[in-house]
Every structure is written in C-alpha cells, then in structure tokens.
C-alpha cells in the first residue's frame, strides 16, 4: 500500500497544466519562436540597419547585395530596413489598439453583464448601433481630429521633455491611428466579456461573496473580472493580427500612416503595383506580414487550447 501511495501523481496547478499543453502544441511553439524573432528583428536589429528613408534615385530596384540585403525599392531605399521599420509600426498598431480595446471592452462588457436587466439591454443596444455605423466615417473623423491634436502634442512634448523632434513627430503621427482603431475594436470584445461574466455570475463563489456582504463594485473588480481575464486575453491575441490587417486595409485606402513612415500595409500596397515587374517588393514584405499573422494566430489558438479546460485534447 505504501508503494501505491508514493506513486500518486503530484498535484498540478492550472498554469502548469496549461504550459505543458502549450509545449506539446508544435504550431503554437513555432509561432512563439517566430514572433520572438520578429520582435527582435523589428525592435532591436532595426537600429543597426541603414536609414530606411534615405532616397537614392540612382540605385532603384537593385538586387540583393552586401549593402542592401533585400535590394532597394522604387526610390532606392533599402528594402530590408523599410520592412523592419514598417514592422515596428504594424506590430505596435496591433498591440496598442488591442490594449485600448481590451481596456474599454472588459470594463464595459463586465459592467453590462454583471448588472444585467434593463441596463444590460440598453448597453448592448448601444453596441449594436455602433456596430452598424459606417466604420470608415468613424475612422476618418477620428483620424482627422486626432491628427490635428498630434501637431500640437509634438510641440508640447518637444518643449517639455526635450525629445528628438523627428522621432516625436513620427510618434505622434502614428499614435492617433492606434487609438482610432482601438476605440472601434472594443465592441465585439465587450460582447464576449459580457457572455463570460453572465455565466460566472451564477457561480457559487460569487454567491458567497454576495452573502459575505461585499459591495457590487468590489465583487466585480476583485472576483469576476480576474476570472474572465483568461479567455479574454486569449481572444485578444487573435485581435492583434486583426488590427494589423485593418491597418493594411486603411493603408490601401490611403488613410493609414503618413509618409515617410511606413508600415507593412503600406509596403504591400506599394508592392502590389509592381506585380509585373519587381515582384519581390510585394513578396518580401508580404512574407513578413503573413508570417507574423500566421504565428500570432497559431499562438492564440495554442493559448486557447491550453487554457480552455473543456477544449478537446487528443
């Protein structure tokens, strides 16, 4: 009997189980690696690359060489550097827009689901109405308004913090886009959070908290929200690629980041004009773009499979 007792398997926590499951998922791990590489390329390695905005009209469409690993584009700019710097913008768009929409969406959805009743119905009707609004109008208005402020913001930042003018200019140029997207992306997320909250609301530990006399706000923020965080975070890893794709679409419409900043969306759009002649201008940024999105999706899937106890295993 003692032998049998010693062979009882050790207890394991939710996170340990999840990590183990993740590790077994080859695609997810592969995705994680790729993203890691992308990050280091775009944010660390990029600083060592030649200036992506340096125009050299004599050396257009050069093939890959010692100096230009991927060759040059239509204005003689180093393609590799452009892709990396473009990656910065695209990845940041995905992350920040997601962060903004998660922040708003969680609070909104949780409150709506928790309070329930007429308030809930009203709040959800607002979401429905907002979803029916032409997205493009919202983006144009938001971008225009926020860009107007970005000029003033640049001046303010440079004066008060002494940051480099060009860098700040580029930053404030791009930031309104993040917020515009984020302010629009919270709608579906709030729905999902609400659904989660509504099911958690009925659980015993919430009843217990109510019985103990805790205030509604405390229950919401200390007990309910932490429990919906899991699935929500997983869902949001899937919205990051969604936002990156949105940014590309906006670039196609001419509403994305402004010159000389570029993003993967801008690069792909420009490259698509050279399909017949210099197809590498499309394929190379497209490759980076697609790889990143692939990896993010696999990662998100892996996270969901790992964390969701009910999901089917082998």
């Amino acid at each position: 009997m003692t032998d049998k007792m010693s062979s009882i398997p050790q207890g394991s926590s939710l996170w340990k189980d999840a990590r183990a499951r993740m590790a077994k998922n080859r695609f997810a791990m592969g995705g994680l690696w790729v993203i890691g590489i992308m990050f280091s390329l775009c944010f660390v390695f990029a600083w060592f690359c030649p200036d992506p905005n340096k125009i050299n009209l004599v050396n257009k469409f050069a093939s890959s060489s010692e100096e230009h690993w991927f060759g040059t584009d239509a204005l003689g700019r180093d393609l590799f550097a452009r892709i990396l710097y473009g990656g910065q913008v695209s990845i940041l768009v995905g992350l920040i827009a997601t962060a903004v929409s998660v922040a708003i969406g969680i609070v909104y959805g949780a409150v709506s689901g928790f309070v329930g009743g007429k308030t809930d119905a009203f709040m959800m009707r607002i979401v429905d109405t907002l979803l029916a609004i032409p997205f493009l109008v919202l983006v144009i208005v938001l971008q225009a308004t926020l860009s107007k402020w970005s000029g003033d913001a640049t001046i303010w930042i440079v004066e008060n913090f002494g940051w480099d003018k060009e860098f700040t200019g580029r930053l404030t140029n791009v930031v309104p886009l993040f917020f515009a997207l984020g302010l629009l992306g919270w709608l579906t997320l709030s729905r999902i959070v609400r659904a989660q909250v509504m099911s958690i609301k009925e659980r015993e530990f919430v009843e217990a908290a109510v019985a103990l006399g805790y205030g509604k706000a405390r229950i919401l923020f200390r007990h309910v929200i932490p429990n919906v965080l899991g699935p929500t975070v997983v869902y949001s890893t899937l919205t990051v690629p969604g936002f990156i794709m949105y940014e590309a679409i906006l670039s196609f419409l001419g509403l994305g980041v402004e010159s000389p900043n570029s993003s993967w969306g801008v690069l792909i759009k420009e490259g698509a004009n050279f399909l017949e002649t210099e197809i590498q201008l499309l394929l190379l940024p497209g490759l980076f773009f697609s790889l990143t999105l692939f990896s993010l999706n696999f990662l998100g899937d892996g996270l969901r499979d790992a964390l969701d106890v009910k999901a089917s295993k082998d």
Partner: protein
Amino acid sequence: MFRFLIGRLFQGMLVLLALYTITFFLAKAMPGEPFTSEKNVSAETKANIRKLYGLDQPLWKQYFVYPKNIITEGSFGISTSKGRPVGDIILQSFPNSLLLGLCSLAFAIGIGVPIGVLSAVRKNSWVDWTCMAIAMIGICVPSFTIGPLLQIYAAAHIPGLKVAGWGNLQDVLLPAFTLGLVSAAYLARLTRGGILEVLSQDFVRTARAKGVSPTKVILKHTLRGGLLPAVAYLGPAFAALISGSFIVETIFQVPGMGQHFVNAATTRDEFLLLGLSLFFGFLIVVMNLLADLLTGFLDPRVRLAGETE
C-alpha cells in the same frame, strides 16, 4: 406574436433613429466641405450651391428635414459627389452587391466548411496541416494582394475570365472568390474546432462502438452540432463581406455599394453616407427580425425561451 412583432419593430425604429443621429453628427464633424473643386468657384456660386442642397439651413433644421423628406417624398436627398438622387444610386448598386455577397458567402461555405471538416477528421496529419495553411491564407494575406495576383495569373490565362468588369455572369467569380476567401478561412477554423469538440463527446463514441460507418458518423451525427460555431459566425461574416467589398469592387471594377460608402466618406458626401448607413441599418434590423421569426416558427422551444430572455 403580434405584440412580439410590434415590440421588435419599435426597437428597430429606435436603433435606426440612433444610427441616424450618430451618423448625422459624425458626417457634420468631418473636416472639409463637400463642394471643394479645383476650379475657381466664386463665393456666390458656393453660396448658391449650398442653398440648393439645403446645407445653408441651421443644423437642427437639417436634422429634421432629412427624415421628413424620406417619409413624405421617399427621397433620400441628392448626392453631392455624384449629382444623382441617393435612392437611385442605392437601387442601382445594391443588386450587384447582393449578388457579389451571396456568391462570396457560397464560396466561403463551399470552401471553408469542407476544409474544416476534413482537417478535423484527419487531425494532426499532413492533411490537417495543409488545410489549415490554406485557410490561413485567407486570414493573413490581404485581399488587395490576392485580387491583383488572381487578375494576372488567372484571368489573363483562363479564357472566359475577364480581368475586371461586370458584364457577364461569370465576372462575379473572381471577385466573389477573393472576397469569400477571408470568411472561408474563419469558417474553416471554426468548423474544425466545432467538429473536434463534438467528436470527443460520448455519443460519437457510442455510435462508433455500435458499428456505424465513419462517414455516416461524420455526416449524420457530428455535422449538425459541429457546424454550430460556424453558423454563429455567419452574422459577422455578412458584416465582413460588406466592409471588405470596397477593395474587391475597386480592383475588379464591380459597380457595387461598398465603394460608394468609402467614396461618400472621402468626398464628404453626407447625403449618400446617411442614405447608405440607414439602408444597411435597415437591412440588419430586418434580417435579425426575420431570423428570429423563422426560428420561432420552426421551433416552439426557442420561441418561448427567446421571449423570456
């Protein structure tokens, strides 16, 4: 039943009203003016043309005049960028968008669902891997890349397929395919997930144990349950088709509604914008209502549950 209808109609009108208000003020908030022209337009001319469109009235008056015109004259105003009645524009372009949308949906379901089923059934094999990779293309490659690629490598070489245009029935194929690919990808993933979940359930094991053939297991027992998440996605898919259609319409020169939406925004054409928004809002409200009605009609359980929700 009657009360249910009235209730929903009322709700729908409220939604449309809210939509109208928000869109109205958003359109007014857009920087710029609808009558910018490169030519030397004198101040008098500008004043005259604003009067023609009723844009010189105070804001609150414009707000009430617009719905009044819809109700009394059935007129949605005249588009400032196109010079034609908005109603005409919508009437002419909607059938094309509808055709494009339905064909895209057909492609999406026709490609996405079988791929999803296949990869679920052959999970973790190379079939699974390739199918998911194909699905990923729809998610990770933007339509403004796929479109031109198809134009160059498919349309130019396959007789009968034109690079762009909307003359013959087969012209809908390439744009519908491009547009449907995104939804197909999501559908494939969702179907795969749904079927996997069902496959792991007990009743499937029972069926297998009883000796039911594998195909029958899939088709008869798992499909219905497995398709649930995919079917739930069809709603957002519809919305995605509408928003993605602009790119496809521009690339393939399809005279649909998507490009009007974007053009209206960029040219500050508020009447066209309002008309289109209200039209879409109306469509969504009506489709919701129809769907719920049909559900209630087919299944009394759902109807009762829906009323107590």
